[in-house]
């Protein structure tokens, strides 16, 4: 797919993105703001037409069979697209009617979803009284009114507190266990890791890596060992010691030494032994998973900067 936004600054939002999703799985599109994730979702949900290329959802072409595609998808976005002036129940009913479900089905689905998303008590309150997490849950519920076999989630947890994020992850996992196919975009490696069976890392409208989270992380240089020291002299000595751990060379950042290691726990033990034998006592000692920043650094040679989307998405 290709898509260019004309205007003051021409933005090539999609530059030959291509991927396929197994039915009944979660596919994650991972990338920073402005990488083209949202544009890809908007093309796949028939909101935008691609300039070039084609996309199919359940075999239906998103341009030529847009109406059919719309009847098999659900979309929940990072901007909770619910009507502020209506109650939760009215919002779900509106979407049900617009899905052309019959009256009893709309009523039943509305009840079920309010229950399922823990909004039954708040169902008849106007949205103004809802918290951010509640709105996001309602937004997701609205995407599910028509029982869509394919669900698009555009940064479903951006801006949520950890508790709400966890709740939402559980809901998504339940949907997938019932057979829904999910395409998820996210900026968080942790989220992609937890939910997605397959991931595509996207940057400047291109897929730059694809695989399971495990494969990607293995390629990305597994784990980062971070050692804090009390002086820069000690940091220099530590850097020399840690250089023997593996193929990657340590980097010094003030009095902190960072090194990427392939086998975290083993390298940590070897590192500690080496420091102990030299009588160095670290002030900090951390093993951490690579962050999205590390992923980008290793894939593109630069930090994942936040660029603006070419359009208010």
């Amino acid at each position, binding site marked *: 797919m290709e898509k260019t936004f004309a205007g003051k600054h021409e933005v090539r939002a999609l530059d030959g993105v291509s991927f396929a999703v197994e039915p009944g799985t979660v596919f994650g599109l991972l990338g920073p703001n402005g990488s083209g994730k949202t544009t890809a979702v908007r093309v796949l949900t028939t909101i935008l037409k691609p300039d070039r290329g084609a996309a*199919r959802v359940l075999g239906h072409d998103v341009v030529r069979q847009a109406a059919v595609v719309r009847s098999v998808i659900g979309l929940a976005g990072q901007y909770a697209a619910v009507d502020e002036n209506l109650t939760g129940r009215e919002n779900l009913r*509106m979407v049900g009617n617009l899905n052309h479900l019959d009256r009893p089905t709309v009523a039943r689905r509305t009840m079920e979803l309010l229950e399922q998303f823990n909004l039954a008590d708040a169902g008849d309150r106007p949205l103004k009284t809802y918290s951010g997490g509640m709105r996001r849950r309602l937004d997701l519920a609205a995407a599910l009114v028509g029982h869509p076999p394919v669900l698009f989630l555009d940064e479903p947890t951006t801006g949520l507190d950890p508790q709400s994020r966890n709740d939402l992850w559980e809901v998504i996992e339940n949907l997938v266990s019932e057979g829904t196919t999910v395409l998820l975009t996210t900026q968080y490696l942790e989220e992609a890791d937890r939910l997605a069976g397959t991931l595509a890392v996207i940057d400047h409208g291109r897929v730059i890596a694809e695989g399971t989270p495990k494969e990607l992380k293995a390629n990305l240089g597994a784990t980062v060992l971070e050692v804090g020291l009390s002086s820069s002299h000690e940091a220099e000595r530590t850097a020399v010691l840690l250089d023997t751990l593996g193929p990657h060379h340590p980097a010094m950042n003030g009095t902190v030494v960072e090194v990427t290691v392939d086998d975290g726990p083993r390298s940590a033990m070897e590192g500690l032994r080496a420091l102990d034998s030299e009588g160095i006592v670290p002030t900090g000692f951390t093993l951490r998973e690579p962050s999205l920043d590390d992923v980008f650094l290793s894939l593109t040679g630069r930090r994942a900067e936040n660029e603006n989307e070419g359009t208010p998405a």
Partner: protein
Amino acid sequence: MTTAAATAASPNPGPGPDGFATRARWAVSDTLTLTRRNLLALVRLPEAVFFSAVQPIMFVLLFRYVFGGAIHTPGVSYVNYLMPGIFVQTVAFGAVSTSIGLAEDLQKGLIERFRALPMTRSAVLIGRTLADLVRNVFTVVIMTAVGFLVGFRPTTGVLPYLVGVGLILLFSYALSWGFAVIGLSAPNSETAQVMSFPVLFPLTFISSAFVPVAQMPSWLRGFATYQPVSVTVSACRALLLGGSTASWVVQSVAWTVGLLVVLIPLASWRYRHRT
């Protein structure tokens, strides 16, 4: 390049467009759903409705008691001259809410949701403009009552009043489509409001709504006489106060139809291409 495919394990083509009758039924039900949704917003915000009535009432009082004495309207009391103008001005100002409402729906992502639903696309714009039409009916009723309180006395009876008000409401419906174009072109609702006023002010004030055109400089009179607000005010005035009506009514209907013919496709095009 190509292929973002999620191939179906279970065949679920969904209820595609099967037949004209079904599609027509859906179009009506979608439009009603969205009209209802927009009207519910009005019920939920009674303060907003109250304050939107305050401004036209202030205009009535201002022109009736402050400026009115200085404006000479031969053969008719100023309050009788004024009220048809106020009706049209009020519904014209009210039409701005079409642009604000659409800009807000765009901003909040509701339009994105609608576009990904298997609904009739035109229902978004028709539902919005119909809801604004319903609101304008109430506005005109309120302004008629306010007019009566300050001495407005139409002289021709109920039927001509209903025809006159009907013309104004039709005209307001055409204007709503114009403001829909603005709302769909604005980056946000605040800008939509600001963008609406340069259209609104010349239309409502360089008109025969408040001041007889004869009192304006000659270079302004052509525009001031034949622009849509003026001909609609003149038609309504003739219907409510007596005088020859046919020519003004025809001109007003012609403007309304002409505006609808141009603005509906324009707004629909903006809606389809807004990204």
